């Protein structure tokens, strides 16, 4: 991507340190990052093998090159496809071309974000330019195509089985569904097997926000990633004849003439058969050409895709579109490659435009040409669409784990599809801007790739811990990170916070977990022993752990107590991964909860040493407020700051 890595690598003083995560971790050299997605566009410069040495000898994978498929090179070392699940579910076999070639764009975008080369001169229709960068730019990459429009469980498992066998180090999965029982969920099952082979599995939290408890991919062996903004805006202003001017976001061509155009709302432009509500959303067939012709149409966000609204406005003869956020979308404005001149406004600004249109006899307006601005604030803030906690399956485990840039991300794209994905749109782009937790997920995969290069023997849990405990919860104004509504966000939105790759390379302490710990976790959830022996015949649940205490004491880098009654004590164990040092505990108590840590100091004499501590959470005399309250625990030796979010709710 052209901005997000700089944004993440910037330190508080606004400077990228010379010893950044990239240099420290040799740009992710020879780590193998794979995605399960829509395949790959192998001709992209992001996957050129110029300057790469031989493929790592441990790699067992390869490329399916038949049917116009994919030929491997020294950068793109694997590409497979799995389509039998799609076909068995009734999918059109002719759509499921027997090839891992990406004809949708999504898989190329996510794989290049995680592990693509540096590509100077990356541009989207000339509207934005820069050097595209993957998170682990010297990693080797592999694509397992399991999505054919949708992504079916049977194909996902086939992709997992092959990727584990082939020897990938990091699996990036920008796919989601409703969270459910871990053993009826292909991503949870596949990732459970993957982590037993030491593979870090990174997944999207989902795009169902801001609804509470909407987070997906919540198994505790997965790294679950929310999405937030960065400090770049594609500003296109909506100007009204009454002098009002509103900052919006867009990537679109300018209006034909430098003059004011008549404005009309979608509802005012409705056809005789359409409802005003449907026309306000600019749904297909709801806009009357005789009313919209030659005007700028104001549409409300929701109901259909943002770009699709522009398509409908264009079909109705409009010259432009102002896309007004609904209340849930708040301040989250996204730069889309609209098919006509357009801009997207915040909820408040959109409401002002609609009020002007509705209260004025002859409303007129204008949309300015988009311009790129860097260093905007506040940034990051949470994307409205990013799925939220609490964890609907195991509320004792905080999810999502982390947030990363997922709005207006520029990365490589498929040469087989247009930016609007409309068949009549003949435009083709080598790079594309896209938004979603699909885009934030591979950022964390890229950071995991760097950690894997730097610390090849670390477990997936240790790598996740390093990413989580070094995250930040303040934005670039040094104030608490916000939601898209610009209210203060909480750990159910951002997990441990916004990723800081430089700090993640030197976490000081980590919360580690083994495959055995995950089996004990499943014991605590009540899975029967016979079932768990299908993973490990020697597995025996320890009776003491088959209670909620087993869940609360699970060595996760966050602490969540969903039903606090009186007091509860939880145990954690940290492993020193730096030099000898003494760490002191510092707590920010959740409102209404008294938190004590014992011991308050942990002295480590060597790397690899482990120490345990206890945290007692006690409801204060006045009792807990309704809902969840949040705090944090930081272990620090003055150099490292090992931060854990705390979430507590009353019974």
């Amino acid at each position, binding site marked *: 991507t052209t901005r997000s890595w700089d944004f993440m690598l910037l330190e508080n003083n606004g400077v990228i340190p010379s010893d950044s995560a990239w240099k420290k971790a040799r740009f992710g050299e020879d780590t193998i990052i794979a995605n399960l997605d829509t395949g790959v566009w192998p001709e992209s410069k992001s996957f050129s093998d110029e300057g790469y040495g031989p493929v790592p000898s441990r790699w067992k994978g390869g490329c399916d090159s038949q049917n116009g498929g994919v030929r491997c090179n020294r950068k793109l070392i694997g590409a497979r496809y799995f389509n039998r699940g799609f076909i068995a579910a009734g999918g059109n076999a002719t759509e499921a071309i027997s090839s891992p070639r990406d004809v949708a764009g999504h898989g190329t975008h996510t794989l290049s974000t995680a592990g693509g080369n540096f590509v100077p001169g990356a541009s989207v229709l000339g509207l934005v330019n820069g050097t595209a960068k993957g998170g682990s730019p010297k990693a080797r990459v592999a694509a397992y195509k399991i999505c054919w429009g949708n992504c079916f469980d049977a194909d996902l498992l086939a992709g997992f089985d092959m990727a584990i066998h082939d020897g990938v180090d990091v699996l990036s999965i920008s796919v989601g*569904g409703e969270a459910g029982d871990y053993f009826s969920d292909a991503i949870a099952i596949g990732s459970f097997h993957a982590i037993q082979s030491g593979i870090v599995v990174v997944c999207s939290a989902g795009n169902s926000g801001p609804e509470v408890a909407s987070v997906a991919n919540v198994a505790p062996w997965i790294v679950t990633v929310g999405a937030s903004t960065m400090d770049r805006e594609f500003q296109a202003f909506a100007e009204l004849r009454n002098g009002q001017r509103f900052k919006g976001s867009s990537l679109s061509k300018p209006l034909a003439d430098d003059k004011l155009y008549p404005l009309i709302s979608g509802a005012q432009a409705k056809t005789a058969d359409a409802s005003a509500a449907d026309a306000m959303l600019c749904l297909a067939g709801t806009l009357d050409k005789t009313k919209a012709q030659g005007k700028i149409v104001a549409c409300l966000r929701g109901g259909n895709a943002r770009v699709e609204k522009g398509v409908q406005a264009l079909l109705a003869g409009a010259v432009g579109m102002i896309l007004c956020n609904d209340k849930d979308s708040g301040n989250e404005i996204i730069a889309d490659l609209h098919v006509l001149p357009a801009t997207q406004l915040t909820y408040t600004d959109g409401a002002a435009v609609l009020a002007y249109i509705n209260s004025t006899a002859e409303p007129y307006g204008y949309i300015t040409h988009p311009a790129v601005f860097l260093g905007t604030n506040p940034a990051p803030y949470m994307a409205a669409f990013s799925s939220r906690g609490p964890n609907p399956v195991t509320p004792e485990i905080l999810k999502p784990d982390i947030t990363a840039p997922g709005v207006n991300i520029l990365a490589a794209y498929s040469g087989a599809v247009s930016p609007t994905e409309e068949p009549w749109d003949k435009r083709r782009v080598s790079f594309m801007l896209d938004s979603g937790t699909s885009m934030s997920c591979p950022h964390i995969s890229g950071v995991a790739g760097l950690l894997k290069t730097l610390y090849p023997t670390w477990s997936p849990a240790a790598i996740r811990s390093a990413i989580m405990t070094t995250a930040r919860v303040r934005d670039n104004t040094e104030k608490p990170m916000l939601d898209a509504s610009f209210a203060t966000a909480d750990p159910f939105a951002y997990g441990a916070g916004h990723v800081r790759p430089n700090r993640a390379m030197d976490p000081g302490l980590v919360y580690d977990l083994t495959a055995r710990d995950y089996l004990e976790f499943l014991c605590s959830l009540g899975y029967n022993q016979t079932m768990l022996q299908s993973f490990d015949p020697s597995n025996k649940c320890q009776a003491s752990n088959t209670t909620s205490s087993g869940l609360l004491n699970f060595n996760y880098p966050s602490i969540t107590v969903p039903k606090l009654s009186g007091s509860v004590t939880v145990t954690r164990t940290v492993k020193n991964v730096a030099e000898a040092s003494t760490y002191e505990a510092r707590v920010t108590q959740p409102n209404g909860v008294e938190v004590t840590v014992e011991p308050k100091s942990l002295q480590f004499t060597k790397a690899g040493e482990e120490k345990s501590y206890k945290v007692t959470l006690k409801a204060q005399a006045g009792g807990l407020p309704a809902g969840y309250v949040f705090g944090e625990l930081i272990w620090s030796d003055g150099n490292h700051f090992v931060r854990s979010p705390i979430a507590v709710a009353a019974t």
Partner: protein
Amino acid sequence: NSAFAAKQSYVVYMGAHTHGPDVTQQDLELVENSHHNFLASFVGSQDKAKEAIFYSYQMNINGFAAILDDEQAAEIAKHPGVVSVFPNRARKLQ
């Protein structure tokens, strides 16, 4: 009635394999045969089992994906060697 029962694709998940990570061709064949034998006991014959199974997960994940009717899926789920049986659902790109 069962002859006309609606069939759909399911995943039958059976945990981990007993073979190690360095899997041989012989291991893979043994696993595939074991999946066919297992399903044959529910669908009536080896041929029907081979026809129904469209994936046999052989390397790390133990299980298979097959076209089954609801009754067959429910019966298979009761087998002690089976961890879970679930429909081959669609998930979305995010």
